[in-house]
């Protein structure tokens, strides 16, 4: 059995009496691709906020890479390789695209500022290469020196994903990366997502694009009103009556499932293994 890179046990988040996450038990096995779906307001972003330390948990535990991370600050969790993206962009707007990625990748010590002032900060070849790779995989190389504000929304979204990749995640948490992308960008992203797994990371994906989620995930959780109402492989989720009722809707489910098949096929055609 592979070990779980992330595991939550009874994770609960309460906002003024309302349980935005209600006793969520969820696991991401190392090296796998796990999805989380659910209707608007189900508590998906709140879940990411909770495990990355942006909101406090009112009950339960979160374990990352074998360590209880409940007491760690957000940047400490990021330092351990638990890297998130944001649903609402949140880029560094006055840094170039490349610098956005370098911020995430470059390690600094307390004395780095002294080296900076002497203009002696050592170049870190490994990180520069990693940044180039992240830019390349998301088709951002041509805009590396542009400002994020000069890019269309879809590409800005991808800068957020690239920034997370540059930070050398063990687990990358993607909050609706495909929202706001046009069809080409979205298909392209779908194609790239699984290649992330080849770079020593596990992936956790939230998205409303059912076609995308069903096609790329190994395992899917379904959240509604803060509770996990179903889980399973894409095939199981597609057939699950509770999911159909709560989320997909009878008709929509069919359409989405067909879409998923279509994407899967296109992937097999175009990505040589």
């Amino acid at each position, binding site marked *: 059995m592979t070990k779980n890179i992330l595991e939550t046990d009874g994770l609960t988040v309460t906002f003024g009496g309302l349980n935005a996450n209600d006793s969520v038990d969820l696991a991401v096995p190392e090296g796998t691709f796990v999805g989380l779906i659910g209707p608007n307001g189900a508590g998906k*972003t709140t879940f990411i*906020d909770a495990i*990355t330390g*942006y909101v406090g948990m009112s009950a339960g535990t979160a374990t990352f890479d074998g360590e209880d991370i409940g007491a760690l*600050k*957000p*940047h*400490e969790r*990021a*330092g351990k390789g638990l*890297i*998130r*993206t*944001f649903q*609402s962009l*949140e*880029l*560094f*707007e*006055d*840094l170039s695209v490349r*610098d956005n990625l*370098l*911020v*995430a990748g*470059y390690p*600094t010590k*307390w004395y*780095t*500022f002294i*080296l*900076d*002032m*002497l*203009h002696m*900060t050592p170049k870190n070849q490994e990180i520069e290469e990693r940044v180039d790779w992240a830019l390349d995989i998301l088709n951002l190389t041509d805009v590396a020196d542009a400002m994020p504000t000069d890019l269309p929304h879809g590409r800005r979204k991808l800068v957020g994903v690239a*920034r*997370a990749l540059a*930070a050398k995640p063990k687990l990358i948490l993607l909050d609706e990366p495909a929202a706001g992308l046009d069809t080409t960008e979205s298909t392209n992203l779908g194609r790239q997502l699984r290649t992330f797994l080849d770079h020593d990371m596990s992936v956790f994906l939230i998205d409303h694009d059912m076609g995308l989620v069903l096609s790329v995930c190994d395992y899917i959780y379904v959240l509604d009103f803060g509770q996990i109402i179903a889980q399973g492989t894409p095939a199981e989720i597609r057939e699950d009556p509770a999911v159909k009722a709560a989320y997909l809707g009878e008709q929509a489910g069919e359409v989405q499932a067909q879409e998923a098949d279509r994407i899967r096929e296109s992937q097999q055609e175009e990505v040589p293994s």
Partner: protein
Amino acid sequence: MKELIIALIAGVGAGGLYAMLGAGLVVAFRGSGVINFAHGAVAAYAAYTFDELRENGDVYLPWFDPIPEFGFLKTLRINNLPVKLHLGEDPSTWLAVAVALLMSAFIGLLMHFLVFRPLRNAPTLGKVIGSVGVMLYLSSIIAVNFGGQNRADVGFGGFTTDSPAVEILGGTIPRSNFYLLAAAVVMGAAVWALYRFTRFGISTRAADENEKGAALLGYSPQFIAGANWVLASVLAGAAGVLFIHKTQPALFVLFVVPALGAALFGNLSSVPGATVGGLLIGIAASGGVELADKGWWPAWLPAEGVRNTVPLLVIILILYFRGDKLPIRGSISIGRQPRAPESNNVLIGLGVCVGIAILLSNIFVSSWEAILTTSLLATLFMFSLVVLVGYLGQISLVQFSLAGVAAFTMTRLAADGTKVRPNDFFVNTGWDLPDPLAALGAVIVATIVGLVVGIPALRIRGVQLAVVTLSAVIALEDILIRNTTLLGEGAKSTNPTPEPSWFGQYVGAFNPDTNRTDYWKYTAFLILAVSLVGVAVANLRRGAMGRKFLAVRANERAAAAAGIDVSKTKMLGFGISSAIAGIAGVLFAYKLPAVSSDNFSVFAGLALLAFAYLGGITTIGGAVIGGLLVAGGLSAETLGVHFEDIDVAYINAVGAIGLIINAIVTGGEGIAMLQTDQGKHILAGLRRDPTIAPPDSVLNLTQEEIQGDVEGALV
């Protein structure tokens, strides 16, 4: 115990003032979303207007003659803009009250139309700069129009200096204190009722929520904003007139600090809350001062410091515990920040600047030494703002006080208990440290104080941080800088600076032979310091930590997600900036035969901030330009406006106007960036490189459009 209770009760007098000012701040904030740092200055202008009219029958309009009658300009005898109106001898008190209130209303209108309406869509930063600009402008104009002399206005109505005493618990409290309390309560209740029951008030509340809400009730949002500005200013004016018998009108400018505490107590939205908050602050401060008189009170904590620390503590407590370590999801965005480009040609720029500086210095051209070093010192200090405000985005108004802390600490550490110069009044005792050590110690102390002051910034951001640091300026001045126990007998007036000698070389600027501050070794020393710090600050921007500073400035949530320890990064920024401010403070002290707290007054600090913004707060070039612009610096002296004492106020008023225009026109980016844009633009034109788009919209017109325009004009 009894004395304490009496003191607490007497506190309702000052508390009433803070309450009235706090209520006005709430009104302005609700109408326009601006925290008005100039609110106390409006009260001050009204109070001066009142007193001037009663004394001399004159009214001064809130501006100055752009071609002043001094220096060689005196001979021109031109008066371009009417400033002074004579309303006749011995006008009645009520006329004076009415004119003072009208003047406040007029200032409110001007603020709305000239400053805050143009800034209504500006990012937070722009609004803060705008309102600090108005504060600096009004206090400079007060200095120009009403001069520096003391006023002794006896007040009017029940609010007079000879108000009969009320006996309580065997002590006496002037009756006017209770009138002030009553005035604050009546005023607060009236504004509350206005918001509660009138259509205008309800529209303001609706506009608070969203602009459409107000429009539905039939008022345009801009009308509402304007009307609230007038109302807020009239409230400030009323507070000024009612309280003038207790104090010097000039002091009103800084009463904005306790008033901010009061307004924050009301969460910037509740007038009754602000009224209660103001009264509580007044009561607590009065009680604190009473306690500070007791025998057991530690001598190193002076009573005046206590009075000014109360609002600081209230403000910090309210904001710190309301704030979050990271902004919560969806909290209002801070808006666009001024660009902070890397400087690529650091060494070339350095060479050019140093070359010019050396040319101007006494080595080649005589008698410019003192002026040149004023600009250099300002630039050096502004580097600290570039790091903290420019790179890290923390709007701190307190950095110049840290320079003061360093200057005074240095004199203390280096003093040896003997007279430095024959005509020194005070003799300072100290540790007799040799010079590099005394300077180093001073810089370390300034850094530590800066770090402590920076702690609130971990949870308080944007304009609220500006509020905290402004109140820290006032508290620091009384707790540290003017503290005779800590910093020596001269701390309240002039502290002689020991003659600095680094490794056997005298590097002070004061030349005992000429009695001027023009010693060439000092200039050389200063050029060296400015160069080293400037290069270091420019390099910081290019390095890994500098990038993290900018990331924190842009988005703290995302910065944490990228693994940045936001708290530590902010502390690092405060530390670096405070150390630079400390270096500037020590070198400033080296220039003077003696340092005094006036050298580091809050207005001097705000003026430096203003000129730093005007130059460009995000770049080294901006700091250099800012340094040239300051009063007493190269540009002002070249233009020849240095003939009379008043010059500083003039230059600062001009600087304040520049600051406001800068906020409106360039989004706070400053002259350096304009010039960069122009430079790029010209280069682009020369190279005809299509990839660099000219920034100017006119230049984006197509040939056809231009043709069309020309034809249209011909027809």
